[in-house]
């Protein structure tokens, strides 16, 4: 009986460790995905002068979960006929995306800032926005990457070791 309990504790703590580690790894991956997608959007705006709804439509297909939620939600808020501006639609997008993403408050704040004036200035000004957010996301990404390298293994080992420690204590 005790043995079964010990096994249960061990597997639970291991799983928790793995999950925490995975979450840590998800953040840099999603940040990188965002950077790629934003680069795609920038190209559409700069070279194609593609209107936002059309460009977002392309991104929905191009992107990956969960980042695609951001594009999907922004697009549907923009195109639902309520007459929202891109800025407002973007806020809706971020809101839905935040629930699915593994990003920090800082990451989301950077994304939120990007929405201000989205689409509503000339191409030159828009490109500046893209350049700026790329830099910001870039540094956030390297931070996240450092965190992941440092802590991902640690969380996993901690899961197992913590489980073992708990079992010993309870024994």
């Amino acid at each position, binding site marked *: 009986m005790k043995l079964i309990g010990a096994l249960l504790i061990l597997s639970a703590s291991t799983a928790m460790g793995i999950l925490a580690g995975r979450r840590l790894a998800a953040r840099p991956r999603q940040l990188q995905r965002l950077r790629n997608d934003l680069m795609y959007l920038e190209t559409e*705006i700069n070279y194609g*002068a*593609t*209107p*936002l*709804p059309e460009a977002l439509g392309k991104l929905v297909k191009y992107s990956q979960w969960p980042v695609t939620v951001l594009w999907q939600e922004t697009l549907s808020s*923009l195109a639902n*006929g309520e*007459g929202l*501006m*891109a800025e407002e*639609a973007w806020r809706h997008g971020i809101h839905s995306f935040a629930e699915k993403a593994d990003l920090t408050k800082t990451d989301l704040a950077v994304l939120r800032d990007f929405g201000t004036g*989205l*689409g*509503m*200035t*000339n*191409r030159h*000004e*828009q490109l500046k926005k893209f350049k700026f957010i790329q830099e910001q996301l870039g540094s956030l990404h390297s931070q996240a990457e450092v965190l992941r390298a440092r802590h991902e293994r640690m969380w996993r080992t901690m899961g197992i070791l913590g489980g073992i420690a708990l079992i010993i204590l309870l024994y």
Partner: protein
Amino acid sequence: MTTLKTKDREWYRQEILPYFPEPLKSWLDRITVQDLAQLEEIRLRIHRPVLLQIGGKNSWLTEDGKIIPAGSGIPFILEQALLQKIIALISQSSFYALETELGQGYLTLKGGHRVGFAGEALLEQGVLRGMKHLSSLNFRLAREITGIADKVLPLLIDYPNQRIYHTLIVSPPGAGKTTLLRDLVRLVSNGIPGLWPGTKVGLVDERSEIAGCFQGIPQNDVGLQTDVLDGCPKAQGMLLLLRSMSPKVIAVDELGKEEDAASLWEMLHAGVTVIATVHGHNLEELRQRPIMGEFIKNRIFQRVVLLSRRQGPGTVEQVLDTVPSVWKPVNRWEGCLP
């Protein structure tokens, strides 16, 4: 028979109102059907009232959303945020995609309506490149009125030679020259049973006003045999169409630049008929102008159609035959049948 394309307000709700945020949207929807039939422009200026030009008279929106003659009541003042929102709606939130349109000063909407802009001009080496900080928008409602050329076209046909005369439509602004040109193009292209068989027409629509192209597709009926070159400068466009589409008739709006003249000569020598419009109140005024004066004096155009607003837009004052040395009116079209 002059008929409005749509009598009800469905077109207005689908083609105009979606560009207005609340509360303007519901206020503008209160316009009566009679007024709507005569609504020409909706003018939006920052920090100023919203004006509606209805049948040549100004009305404005009041604070409580009524449409009453300008000068009475307390007008609704358009603030920056609302204007921004309208700009977002007409550009699909993509102001950056309007570069060409801002350089031209207007944008064509679905349905052939157009929005004119004014704001702070952006110059690049002295050439207008675009605009920022838009402060005025002018929605000009396109009315496709078919039938007004029915009486005019028979006067423009050279029956013995089975061709159309070179024709110049002279009209002051807002007297329907574009509408007449569009309807002429449609008829020349489609033909009139018993009178005219219809022929290939090349239409250079520099300002997207005639065919009202939205993303390259004509929104107005310009005839079955009409090829539209949208947004192209007239001088280049005429030559291009001549080479590429072998038209029998070429139609252009608002002649007057120097390079237009050179292309026009080219057309005349290539045996293509030209139907063109020009701004002007009468022939005397045109004779004074450098480019057009030459054409008038040399009697290049065999028919001149004079329009006015005397009985509302599209009043045909006179159709002149310029072939004899004394120009004579050919108003009674029975008179010029063979």
